[in-house]
């Protein structure tokens, strides 16, 4: 293995995020309790620098570096931009929120940066092991963040459940990886691709390995409703977009890249999984009364749509998932941003009924929620529609018309629980006083999210071309 200094330059964004996180944890020691927000602003700065670095190398395609475990290509660049965006927005949403929760501590932002670097490694990983390392770095940071409100039993419970489930699924994933290694003698993705091509698709051991990989990764893209409900809302927002996008980045590369030649052996499995995911998410969400729980199921349903892109495959399937993740980041961060506004003093504001009559009192926030909810429901002219449209296009191009029909039916079902919230906001009289926890940072995050949701809805061409030009050859 040659140790090329140029490679070190290429992975500079990862190094910046990690070393920035380490410096901030030291800085935390010398800051007073009322100065912790400085860490937040510095982490925003670190994210921006890293983003600038990634943007600079955007044109490069490094090939496989660092012992062929890592690559800097358009695909990883696109996903990293999504990660920067989601982390940036999540930090903005946190600044006031963790003060309200009374857990304003420096490690909070440091852990977010660690999670970010984990996601970046996942997007760039070209070896099952480097992907696994990134995934664990991300997951461990998020376990801690989930339980960050130590005095709150729900938060602790959520963290505990997440660790147990996460450890279990990591075990399954690792077992899958070990099977893959046993069959093909490699974990490197392009070698794997060559190996399975020669293997023949009906190898039962390989099918078993794939089932383990699907189960392991599947857990990472699905949302655990208890965890979503118990975690600090800013972290729920964060994990509903960033880690999910990172897992999809890895899944696409593993399945469409490395296991693409044997797609017959997994495509039906994924198709069935996506139908179940969409159905469970859409139908269970109908009966939820807690908005964070409802959004957890909504997040499951959206993961189901994104999985359809994997089923569709091909350049369009990949680009559709990429665009979907970007769009989902904007709209989901937006809706969580409005939920965070409700949390003030002792009021939690997590019941869907708490939003009753919001439009009478606060027109601006009500309008933002309207935009985000219609976007989540996939109604044009919002970005959510463009995302679904592309997924359906990719599906139909690959000939999966019945699957597309199932997906649109599910999306019509799921429209119900989004417009129900719009109904409560606009069509009912308020039953209580609204006192919103506004802050400049939160407003900025909402403005970015709303701008993205509308802009991609009306003028998707630029974003679409970005996604299309960034796909990996698979």
């Amino acid at each position, binding site marked *: 293995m040659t140790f090329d200094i140029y490679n070190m330059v290429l992975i500079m964004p990862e190094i910046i995020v990690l070393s920035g996180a380490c410096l901030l944890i030291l800085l935390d020691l010398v800051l007073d309790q009322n100065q912790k927000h400085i860490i937040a602003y510095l982490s925003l700065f670190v994210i921006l620098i890293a983003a600038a670095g990634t943007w600079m190398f955007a044109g490069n395609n490094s090939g496989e570096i660092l012992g062929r475990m890592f690559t800097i290509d358009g695909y990883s660049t696109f996903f990293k931009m999504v990660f920067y965006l989601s982390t940036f927005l999540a930090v903005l949403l946190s600044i006031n929120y963790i003060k309200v929760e009374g857990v304003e501590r420096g490690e909070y932002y440091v852990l977010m940066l660690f999670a970010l670097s984990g996601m970046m490694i996942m997007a760039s990983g070209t070896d099952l092991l480097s992907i696994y390392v990134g995934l664990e770095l991300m997951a461990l940071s998020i376990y801690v963040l989930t339980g960050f409100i130590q005095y709150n039993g729900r938060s602790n419970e959520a963290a505990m459940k997440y660790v147990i489930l996460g450890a279990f699924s990591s075990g399954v994933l690792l077992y899958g990886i070990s099977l893959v290694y046993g069959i093909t003698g490699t974990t490197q993705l392009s070698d794997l691709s060559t190996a399975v091509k020669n293997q023949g698709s009906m190898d039962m051991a390989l099918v078993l390995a794939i089932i383990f990989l699907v189960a392991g990764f599947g857990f990472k893209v699905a949302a655990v409703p208890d965890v979503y409900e118990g975690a600090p809302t800013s972290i729920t927002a964060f994990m509903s977009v960033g880690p999910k996008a990172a897992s999809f980045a890895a899944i696409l590369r593993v399945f469409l890249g490395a296991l693409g030649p044997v797609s017959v052996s997994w495509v039906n499995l994924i198709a069935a999984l996506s139908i179940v995911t969409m159905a469970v998410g859409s139908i269970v969400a109908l009966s939820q009364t807690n908005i964070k729980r409802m959004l957890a199921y909504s997040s499951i349903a959206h993961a189901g749509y994104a999985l359809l892109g994997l089923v569709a495959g091909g350049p369009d399937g990949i680009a559709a998932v990429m665009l979907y993740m970007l769009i989902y980041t904007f709209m989901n961060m937006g809706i969580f941003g409005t939920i965070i506004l409700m949390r003030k003093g002792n009021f939690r504001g997590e019941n869907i009924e708490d939003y009753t009559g919001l*439009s009478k009192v606060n*027109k601006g926030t009500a309008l933002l929620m*309207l935009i985000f909810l*219609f976007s989540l429901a996939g*109604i*044009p*002219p919002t970005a959510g*529609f463009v995302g679904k*449209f592309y997924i*359906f*296009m990719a599906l*139909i*191009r690959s000939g999966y*018309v019945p699957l*597309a*029909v199932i997906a*649109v*039916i599910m*999306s*019509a079902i799921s*429209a*119900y629980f989004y*417009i129900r919230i*719009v*109904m409560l906001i*606009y*069509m009912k009289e308020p039953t209580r006083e609204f006192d919103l926890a506004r802050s400049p940072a939160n407003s900025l995050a909402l403005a970015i999210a709303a701008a993205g949701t509308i802009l991609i809805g009306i*003028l*998707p*061409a630029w974003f*679409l*071309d970005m996604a*299309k030009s960034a796909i990996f050859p698979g």
Partner: protein
Amino acid sequence: MIEAVHNSLGIPILSIVTFLPLAGAAVLLFVRNAGLVRWIALAVTVADFIVSIPILLNFDRTTYHMQFVEHYQWIPSWNITYFMGVDGISVLFVFLSALLGWICVVASWKAIEQRVKEFMIALLVMQTAMIGVFCALDFFLFYLFWEAMLIPMYLIIGVWGGKNRIYAAFKFFLYTLAGSIFMLIGIIVLYFAGGETFDIIALMHQKFSLPVQLWVFLAFFLAFAIKVPMFPFHTWLPDAHVEAPTAGSIILAGILLKMGTYGLLRFPMALFPYATSYYAIPIIVLSVIAIIYGGFLALAQTDIKKLIAYSSISHMGFVTLGLFVLNATGIEGGILQMLNHGITTGALFLCIGVIYERTHTRELAAYGGLAKAVPIYTTFLAIFVLSSLAIPGTNSFIGELLIITGAFGFNKVFAGLSIIGAMLGAVYLLGMYKKIALGEITNPHIREAWDVDGREIAAMAVLALFVFWIGLNSAPFLDIMHVSVNHLIEQMNTVNGYYATIN
């Protein structure tokens, strides 16, 4: 497409007429005073109406080609363009939408007291989406406008509607969404079947394979049949019409229902002529059921708004009957009847709204002797009632006559059955008029009712003008659509000839 690059005015007039209301809505965001909001909304919608007049005046009646065309790149990698244009069919509905736009504002002047600003914004956004639907020549653009209508209409019914408004709003939203998602799949299937384009004109020149025709026809048909609404997809309509505020009912009856029939004419019929003749009989049967069943339902109503709502089902049955007899007389009658129904039923809902503001009841039993209390109002009501039951001299007579003539050319049984519906119309409409306007005043509220004011007279007079104009001299209106309809039929015959040779 050479045949579509044609804009005699040289200015993007269709974009102006489409987006002017949206710009007005954006201005309204910054206005706080409710009175000022009303005036700005009125000014914007009147301006929009004025802009729509030169479109009609400069319309070239001698060609079926799309006119006032605007064509720009929008999303190149999906081959989606911003493509606007009108032909002899759609131009009438652009005009109708612009006409009813300011009438809706007038109808809401006093009826809407709560959240006036939000209401007017919703109304203006709605108008942009509606006019956009009639101008769009790119499927993606069309679908965008089509679905975007759901948001303001959901709010108009749900926020400003009657007692049962939330149920009605959900029903409207979910029904319409359920229909249009299948159309979305249909559109994407066509995109790939037609050589990766959403260009409607280009797709019209394609010959699709039989399975594509038959399946995608059904996907489109479902979306449009729900909108029309055809029997048995009509159950959302009474709820939505009755619960919606007056302006909402005018939009629903005047324009939204027309979108269903316009959609049927523009897409499934023009794109899949073979499937159209294949499914024509079942659709005609459904139409005749709608005519008669809708008439009987209207007969049984005691609420005026519900009565008019059910009468719409019957009248729209005439329209779909006219379209699917597949001859020029029937289709032209159908199109004219779409325009007529928009004017007449819009006017009837306006009348109901006007009297409801005064008496706060829509129960037929609570009325009687209105002619003595408010003579000008009852005169207008009489005109619109007579127009609705298609008395000679009014607009609907010409429309229904053409449709029934067309139907006789197709099949005497269906034509004969449809006449039953026309007779039922006379029964329930005259019965309604008798109960409302004639007899003695029994309800003290009616004695206190004041007659229509200048604003309301202006709106009713303009609509009455069109009732008689089309009724007495329908030639200019038929001329506009004539060439386009003939072209449609020619195209259908050519394509069906082609299928006849390969089968």
